[in-house]
């Protein structure tokens, strides 16, 4: 899961905000990866048994397991589909972006 304290990235609007040399504020992520996605994973929570295989295999760590139901950070999910492919319960489906599940 995305670390909670991470700050969102803003493009510098003034020269003072530009990074200088190797020194810049830490804990800021660069642009989201959601634009790469063609299909979006959608979890059917009624089928999920929390085996956490999707959580383990997710390359980008976008699945969160802290809440009662697993969460997905759609800002950083690239839509690779590993979670849906590996889910033993077929609880995750890949839905074309722009369509409703």
């Amino acid at each position: 899961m995305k670390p909670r304290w991470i700050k969102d990235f803003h493009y510098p609007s003034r020269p003072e905000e530009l990074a200088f040399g190797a020194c810049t504020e830490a804990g800021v992520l660069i642009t989201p990866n959601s634009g790469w996605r063609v299909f979006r994973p959608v979890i059917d929570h009624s089928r999920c048994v929390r085996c956490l295989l999707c959580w383990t295999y997710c390359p980008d760590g976008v699945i969160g397991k802290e809440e009662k139901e697993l969460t997905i950070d759609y800002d950083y999910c690239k839509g690779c589909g590993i979670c849906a492919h590996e889910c033993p319960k077929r609880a995750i489906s890949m839905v074309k972006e722009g369509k409703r599940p």
Partner: protein
Amino acid sequence: MAEVGIMAIDFKNLSDRELMYGQKTCPGCGATVAIRLALKILGERTFLCIPACCAAATTNAYPQTSFFVNNVVTAFPATGSTIAGMAAAAEAQGLEDVTILGVAGDGGTADIGLQALSGACERNDNVIYLCYDNEAYMNTGIQRSSSTPWGAWTTTSPAGEGARGVVKSRKNLFDIIAAHRVPYCATASVAYPRDFMEKIAKAKAIKGARFIHVQAPCPTGWGYPTEKTIEYGRLAVGSGLWYLAEYENGEMKLNMTPKTFKPVESYLRGQRRFQHMKEDDYRLIEKQRDREWALLRERMKS
């Protein structure tokens, strides 16, 4: 974070906090799985060092980094020597609870970084070296490395009329490092995350030079759909073309010995890099595999 007990990885107890996030690796990248899981076990008190490779190029988009641990980006051949220096610095500062971790690709390990790694192993520097093996120089556009398997197409080992991909068998890194008689050395696969994380946890608890060679399928370079990374990792082990082993206390051990192998075609056929292969190529690979396994079984307990 609670100490992760050796041989008792439970996904439920692992930290949900990522130490690497937002990196620009390709969708479905196996190397990313390996680094993410390794950092989960090693925890925040890790000093990381990465040479030129996918893992460096995709995590350092100026001026930010995707890592939430300190990370030294080093020159392509220098992982072994850089982590040796970092370990010396940590020792000089009296830091005892830290792990020095080098993460490099197969090119940066088996080819250009081999002598620096060999030096670190020979001196028994207090480091962990994790080589994620995507079986070619991927970051620069799929060139052959000495860890690319026989017959694979890459841009520098073309396949087609009169050419059949890589013409040499791959180097066995596990054997090379075990020959240094290091305290711990292992192979792993991202498709077997429990085994992999147990090996990382084991390595964390040991002092001295530790080496883990993890196979990390690469959808971009191997040419398969992004969702099949784990499946291909499994097929590689199932068909006997990759193996899970450990070297510890002077003894080699196989962690998994398939009774019967899956046909090599099941692993090779779906990948673009093996598309040119014909029936006799498969049989040749099978023969090589059986010879390799006879050797493995002879040397190792399982």
